[in-house]
Structure formats: structure tokens, C-alpha cells
């Protein structure tokens, strides 16, 4: 299994000379697996360049971590959703009150957007209950993680290799003694022992102290979570929109100084990693 990052920015897409290396598009990750199918993690603005590069597939599965705008705003700009020859499956967290289709239709309907869900071609929606399911050769485990609203983390396993995706996650929230006590740490069960962890890297420690409960991770907690879970590689993701490339260089130098064990990989658009 291999994956490629297309959208790495968090919260809102950014553009300009200060965000060239770490990217400006929001969450979208292409997962290359066996067979003529495409698996994508989240539907942020990174979906647009992704499709331009990968070309058509017979079937596309899009796993949404949650429905905040930066994770779904690319959906209507993704041509397979309007192509009757492509079967598209959209997976996202279940809700008590509305189906996934109904919730996405709040965005894909006027006045917010001219295209309606009913205009989509060959699209099926799946309300995901925490648990396990199979996508071709990939075994998927989904579980809720701490982030405002219902948010899923995903663990994808193919041929014994595990990729874990937690783009928006605050692992220290609700913890009395983080990073001790993994039993009470959100996301631990999913991430434990993974070959690669793609994880929220939104805040410096100073920023995190001002934004506890916003659902994102400070750099020290990110390092501690990666070590606690024993992952082999940590890929940073969901960079704060206010962080320029030079700020993120500094952020990553700090992160690398804190992490003793997992290899830190800087999440940048176009990055391709073998799991």
C-alpha cells in the first residue's frame, strides 16, 4: 500500500508565496491499493489536483473523517461524482439525527452551492458506525476520536501494513495525565503499532494553550502521542493556515527534537510514502 498527500492544510485553503512548500489545499490523501479502484481520505480542496493527476477509476471510495468544510469542500469539484461510469462511495461518521447524505446535502444545495446531491451521478453514501469493514484488499477500522462533532479516525491495513489517518485530533483532551495511561487516550487503539500515522500537527505549544478543546494537537502532545503509540513513521498534516513555510520549518525542527523513535516525515503536497 502506498499513499500520496494532495491536501495538507487545515481549516481553510491558503495560497501565496509563504505556503508553497507545505501546501495550501485542505485535506485529501490518495491511497493506492490493489485493483482498479481509488481510495481517498477526506474530500478537501486537495481533491481537485488529485483527480487531475490520477485519471479515471472504475470505483472510488472516499472516507470522510468528519464533515467540517475543509474536509468536504472539494467534493463538488471532483469529476467522478458527476460521471455515471464511475461508482463513487462516500463514507462518513454516523449521526443520530440525519443521514450522511442529508448532512452533505446541506452544503451541496443552494444557496451554498448550485449543484445538489440529487444531481450527482452514481454516488452511494455510507453512514459509518465505529467498527470494521472491507474495501477490496484493504481492511478498514474506524473509531471516534476527540474533535468537535462526530469525527472518525481510520486504520487501513493491507498485507499486514497499517496506515492510520487522524487529520483532526486532540489526544490530550479528557486526559488527566497525558501521555501516561494509553487506555484513556483517544486514538490510541487505532494508532497503536501502525507503520505510518498521518496526524494533526496544527499548533505550537503556545497556540495549543490558548485553544484547548478546539480539537487539534500541540507539537509536544503530537510527539508524545507518536511515541506512546509506537508508530514507525509520523507524517505531519493539517498545518495551521497562519503558519508560513518558515514557521513550519521551525515547527518541524522542534518536533524532530522531541521525538525519539518514530521517523518524522514533513507532510507536503505530492509526498508519496510506501507503507
Amino acid at each position: 500500500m502506498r499513499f500520496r498527500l494532495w491536501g495538507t492544510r487545515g481549516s481553510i485553503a491558503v495560497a501565496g508565496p509563504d505556503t508553497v512548500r507545505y501546501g495550501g489545499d485542505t485535506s485529501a490523501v490518495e491511497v493506492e491499493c490493489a485493483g482498479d479502484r481509488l481510495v481517498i481520505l477526506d474530500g478537501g480542496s486537495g481533491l481537485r489536483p488529485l483527480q487531475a493527476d490520477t485519471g479515471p477509476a472504475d470505483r472510488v471510495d472516499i472516507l470522510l473523517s468528519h464533515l467540517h468544510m475543509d474536509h468536504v469542500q472539494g467534493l463538488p469539484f471532483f469529476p467522478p461524482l458527476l460521471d455515471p461510469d464511475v461508482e463513487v462511495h462516500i463514507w462518513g461518521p454516523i449521526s443520530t439525527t440525519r443521514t450522511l447524505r442529508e448532512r452533505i446535502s446541506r452544503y451541496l444545495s443552494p444557496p451554498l452551492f448550485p449543484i445538489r446531491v440529487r444531481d450527482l451521478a452514481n454516488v452511494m453514501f455510507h453512514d459509518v458506525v465505529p467498527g470494521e469493514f472491507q474495501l477490496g484488499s484493504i481492511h478498514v477500522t474506524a473509531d471516534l476520536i476527540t474533535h468537535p462533532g462526530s469525527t472518525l479516525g481510520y486504520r487501513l491495513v493491507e498485507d499486514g501494513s497499517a496506515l492510520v489517518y487522524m487529520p483532526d485530533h486532540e489526544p490530550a483532551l479528557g486526559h488527566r495525565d497525558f501521555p501516561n495511561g494509553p487506555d484513556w487516550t483517544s486514538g490510541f487503539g487505532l494508532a497503536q503499532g501502525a507503520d505510518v500515522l498521518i496526524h494533526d500537527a496544527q499548533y505550537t505549544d503556545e497556540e495549543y494553550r490558548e485553544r484547548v478543546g478546539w480539537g487539534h494537537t500541540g507539537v509536544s502532545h503530537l510527539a508524545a502521542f507518536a511515541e506512546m503509540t509506537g508508530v514507525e513513521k509520523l507524517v505531519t498534516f493539517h498545518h495551521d493556515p497562519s503558519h508560513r513555510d518558515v514557521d513550519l520549518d521551525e515547527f518541524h525542527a522542534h518536533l524532530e527534537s522531541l521525538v525519539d523513535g518514530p521517523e518524522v516525515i514533513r507532510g507536503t503536497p505530492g509526498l508519496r510514502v510506501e507503507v
Partner: protein
Amino acid sequence: MRSQQPVEMILLRQVASYLTIPMWLMDGHGNLIYYNEPAEGLLGIQFDDAGPIHADQLSEMFRVTTLDGAPLAEHDFPIVSALNKRSPSHDSVRYCGMDGIWRDVAVSAIPVEGQGGRFLGVFATFWEIGD
């Protein structure tokens, strides 16, 4: 692999840790997985000393009767009732904790159900009944 508590229980524990109301968190098997500091006063033992308590141990550690001192069937205790019936339960009872002191308390137990109908356990509050 080690297991991890469901995120709903992690967040409930955080809420409980900030409240002045004595609160228990039970998992779906009836194990006492957390109680907050105000509950320590009622139970007569600190959580850090006791740690999680297996369901089988609970009935040995805490004696419960009606307010009149009559025996109370285990399935009538609100927490057990909420666990078994998966519906809210409330009653006033007399119980004796690890410190050997009998107390009269009102117990309210609420089942915790996560998205997708996942039964995760019960949280219970205890109000000491004054004279």
C-alpha cells in the same frame, strides 16, 4: 493489542473530573472504570488507590439496603438496573462503603449509548440525603 476506552467515556470522565457531584462511570460489563474525587468521599477510598473495580468485586466492597435497612436485591440497585435494562433508573438507598460508614444517598443512573446504537456503559450520580 491493548484496548482503549471509547471516546465517549473519555469525554464523560473529563466532565466528571470537573464536577462537584459524585459520579461513577461503569463500562458495559458493569466494571467501575472511574469515579471522581467527590465520589471518593462517599466510597471511602480514593480512585488512585482502588483503580478500576471489576463487577464481581463491587458487591463485596459495598453493601446496599433500602432506606429502611431492608435487603435490596442486586438487580434493583439503580446502576445494575440501568445496565441490565439499558434505561434510566433512580432510587434512594442506604449503603456502606470501604470506610464502614452507612450513608443515605439518592442514586441516578443513565445508560450511555454511542452513535450507531453502541451500548457503552452507565454513568451514575450520587446525592447524599441530609437529615
